[in-house]
């Protein structure tokens, strides 16, 4: 199990995956909005989404968990 974490503080703008989705390393799984910029967040390794932790609109801090991969 690994966590995809927020690379910086901001608001969750879009969650691009749902539970059960297969993701590949390097694939964007969420987009944050911070400093008026879109911040894509990519999975660091291959896996299956076991839990979507962040909700769209949430404020998240750097290193907060966004998506759990199994």
């Amino acid at each position, binding site marked *: 199990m690994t966590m995809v974490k927020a690379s*910086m*503080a901001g608001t969750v703008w879009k969650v691009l995956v749902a539970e059960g989705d297969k993701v590949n390393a390097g694939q964007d799984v969420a987009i944050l909005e911070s400093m008026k910029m*879109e*911040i894509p967040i990519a999975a660091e390794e291959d896996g299956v989404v076991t839990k979507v932790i962040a909700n769209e609109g949430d404020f998240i801090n750097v290193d907060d968990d966004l998506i759990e991969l199994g």
Partner: protein
Amino acid sequence: MSETMKDKILQGGQPKYHEKNKAQGKLFARERLALLLDDGLQSEDGLYANALAGDLPADGVITGIGKVNGQTVCVLANDSTIKAGSWGKRTVEKMIRIQETAEKLRCPMLYLVDSAGARITDQLEMFPGRRGAGRIFYNQVKMSGRVPQICLLFGPSAAGGAYIPAFCDIVVMVEGNASMYLGSPRMAEMVIGEKVDLETMGGAKMHCSVSGCGDVLAKTEEDAIAYTRKYLSYFPSNYTERSPVEAPKPPATFEKSIADLIPQNQNVPFNMYDLIDRLIDEDSFCEVKKLFAPELITGLGRIDGQPIGIIANQPRVKGGVLFHDSADKAAKFISLCDAFNIPLVFLADVPGFMIGTQVEKVGIIRHGAKMIFAMSEATVPKLTVIVRKAYGAGLYAMAGPAFEPDCCIALSNAQIAVMGPEAAVNAVYANKIAELPEEERTAFINEKRKEYQEEIDIYRLASELIVDDVIEPNELRQALATRLPLYMSKYVTFTDRKHGVNPV
């Protein structure tokens, strides 16, 4: 008799230690030198250091002179087959002497480090005195900016020894084998009660991506050596000389042009590496600190054969926002290029410095100040390109017009402002927007944003002489290639003083 002794010394430590090295993917120190240097060591001094001790060939370090890309360099290489590359009195004396030679010859000094540190049993002889190990670091500081200093880290650099990489211009670390730490995991457990493994605490990957103590993560020793040879090709022998210029090469060709790459919407990311590839000579990029603070790219490249240092925001990572670590990374890279007469090209697409509690607590202001300090002090040609946007102090840090760039060129869709339109309208009209009936708000905001866009229109800024030229994205390579040689005669002294008080 003497011939036999020499042969023995050249073989290094006992076979079992050579085997151990091999099992770890490590080369013998002399093999490393053979790979690194054009024709091996051309002179070696101190081969017989501690020869009468019998089990300490060359006293665990090889020092001498050779060539890299035809350029003279001084080298020292710890031999980890001899008491784990540890330092005794003569080891340290040899290291000090080869540094002194590099300084006298005004040539690069290369440190091939693989050492457990001091021989504690010999400490009085090699630790505290005038020509003890401290002198190595003193010399490094004195040589800094006079000659290039490079550390290739093949194994540990422990405790005091960890300062050799710290004072070098650049540190290349081999993944899995290289490490830097002040206290070993065993010591950490004894002294502070922390249980941790070496790789987590001081491994190559950690240092190259988290602490920033390492600059380049190499998969193998061969890769580390190849990188070093490439890196050195951008540098002159010393600060009084200029980098060798290679034959001009056009950039690699791509289907998409620069104009196709850059999104119209300021908020949408794109990959800055794609732009760099279209600006520099094919295969000429040599990145420094790729894994550390990747929201800012720093690396060497060539335009028409002339070496340049590139500082570029990366909108693909963290929106290209500047953080404490990216500012730190930029400060060192700028100072490196300035020291060795390598012109700087700034590619700005920056929403500003990060804000919020977390970054204030780590001192983003003082780290940002380091970048602005180094960039201001740099007297090499500085070419600034506003690729897409430069907001707030981001404009300043990326060598904006107030910081004496030789030119500040904007691409035709660029925006320069205190902040972006969304944030600005919100900052100026927050109260007014709140007072408006809800159905009128969007129209009001859009109108104010449009007015703001007009206010910061790039041709307006050009008309006010804020930027020196506005060009189409696909003209950028040519513009840089034309301007760069014009600025090469620049020779200025920043100011007259002993030295500034660096905001470190």
